[in-house]
């Protein structure tokens, strides 16, 4: 039985009702995880997840599937470590195999400033209880024998930080596992249902206007990736977010094992191997904001050049496909989760290039916020209100962007 047959057997789709306790806009990882935890942990199953196309069609199915917690500010380290821990036991909890595999992440440094940045990352991570250690080029070479330590003569490896807890998982399977978990509890997942407006009662948000008619809701959560500024504008909420495309590509199968995940701030690329043996390579997001999903040859050229500097074996592989996703990059490079100042309207957004790893923690914590009305400690630093008080969670360095 292949995975597609298996999927058809397990999911029971629903007809939309006119009213739900909670309506979640966006059928990606964060939306479905929030729905799952609302039903499983808090007994709130009268929930609908609205997806404009099909579940996982957005960034949940376009990312490069890396799960890690080696972030640069304590609040983020705690949050992502919690997510990493949840991922470890998630396959058992959901009863669904999504090829989670702990690989370790080697973050290379080619210059002294980069070495300092990596050392600072290690110190901060250890202080927060996350294992990240400095390793020598020789140790990096033992972890990843394919690595050219001279970096093609241009980018010599001076050292690296090693984060053994990092993992990868099959991204669309995570989405489907959460969808299955949520639907078994009675959550409605409505595909091909686009939100075209919000129902308002004075300032309060009381539901959503969809392509299939209005649906009223006690709470509306926007878990949208890409179009969140448009959704928020329906509620007159302004967000510190710009949407940038990010490109990635995948090669054909590499028969030998490529053990760790390789990441590099100076070259702005990250490399890992999928369960099928293909090598996935991602890059920096584009500087100018846009909603275009068109990937380009110039990206392929520059990214492939960078990756082959470090990993000469990539020259012998062929590129199977390339794609782009659109990332909501927040002004301080940290997510924005929680209340918006408008009654009945919450957001989980600003997931930029770091959303996939945060799916379990983001979903769990947002569900707790919706169910109890109190902001959990892990979410508290990431509220939208932080910008008004100038408490930005600046964390650009650890997102693999520049």
């Amino acid at each position, binding site marked *: 039985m292949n995975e597609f047959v298996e999927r058809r057997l397990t999911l029971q789709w629903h007809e939309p009702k006119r009213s739900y306790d909670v309506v979640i806009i966006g059928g990606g990882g964060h939306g479905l995880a929030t729905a799952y935890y609302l039903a499983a942990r808090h007994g709130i199953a009268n929930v609908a997840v609205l997806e404009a196309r099909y579940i996982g069609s957005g960034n949940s199915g376009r990312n490069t599937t890396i799960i890690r917690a080696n972030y640069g500010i304590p609040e983020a380290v705690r949050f992502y470590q919690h997510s990493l821990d949840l991922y470890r036991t998630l396959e058992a909890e959901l009863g669904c195999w999504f090829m989670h595999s702990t690989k370790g992440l080697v973050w290379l440094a080619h210059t002294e400033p980069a070495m300092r940045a990596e050392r600072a990352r290690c110190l901060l991570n250890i202080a927060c209880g996350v294992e990240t250690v400095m390793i020598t080029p020789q140790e990096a070479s033992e972890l990843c024998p394919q690595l050219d330590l001279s970096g093609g003569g241009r980018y010599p490896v001076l050292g690296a930080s090693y984060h053994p807890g990092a993992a990868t998982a099959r991204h669309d399977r995570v989405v489907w596992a959460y969808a299955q978990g949520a639907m078994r509890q009675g959550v409605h997942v409505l595909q091909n249902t686009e939100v075209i407006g919000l129902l308002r009662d004075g300032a309060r948000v009381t539901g959503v206007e969809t392509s299939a008619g209005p649906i009223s809701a006690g709470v509306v959560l926007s878990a949208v990736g890409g179009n969140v*500024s448009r959704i928020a504008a329906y509620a007159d909420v302004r*967000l510190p977010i710009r*949407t940038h495309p990010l490109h990635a590509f995948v090669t054909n199968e590499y028969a030998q094992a490529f053990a760790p995940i390789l990441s590099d701030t100076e070259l702005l690329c990250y490399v890992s191997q999928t369960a099928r043996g293909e090598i996935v390579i991602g890059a920096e997001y584009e500087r100018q904001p846009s909603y*275009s999903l068109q990937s380009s040859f110039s990206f392929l050229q520059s990214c492939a050049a960078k990756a082959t500097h470090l990993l000469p074996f990539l020259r012998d592989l062929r590129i199977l496909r390339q794609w782009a996703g659109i990332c909501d990059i927040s002004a301080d490079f940290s997510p924005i989760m929680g209340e918006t100042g408008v009654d009945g309207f919450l957001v989980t957004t600003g997931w930029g290039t770091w959303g996939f790893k945060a799916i379990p923690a983001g979903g769990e914590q947002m569900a707790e916020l919706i169910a109890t009305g109190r902001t959990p400690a892990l979410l508290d630093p990431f509220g939208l209100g932080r910008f008004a008080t100038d408490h930005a969670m600046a964390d650009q360095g650890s997102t693999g962007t520049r």
Partner: protein
Amino acid sequence: MLWITCPTCGRRPVEEYGFGGELRGVPERITDPVERDVDYAWMYDNLHGITSERWFHQAGCRRWLTLRRDTTTDTVV
């Protein structure tokens, strides 16, 4: 890929340019001066459509230019 026409240097690839951000204002409906400051400092329009923005021709004449770009397709209009 995006190509931008510089008034001095002609049509050049986007790699030569630095993105300077969109020309933005604060919505009229925000009247509180403090809220206007917060909006100006942090918030973006993030328009799905045509925006006016500043670009800097870094690897060329090193002058600023203003152009209109469609963010839906990432093309200059």
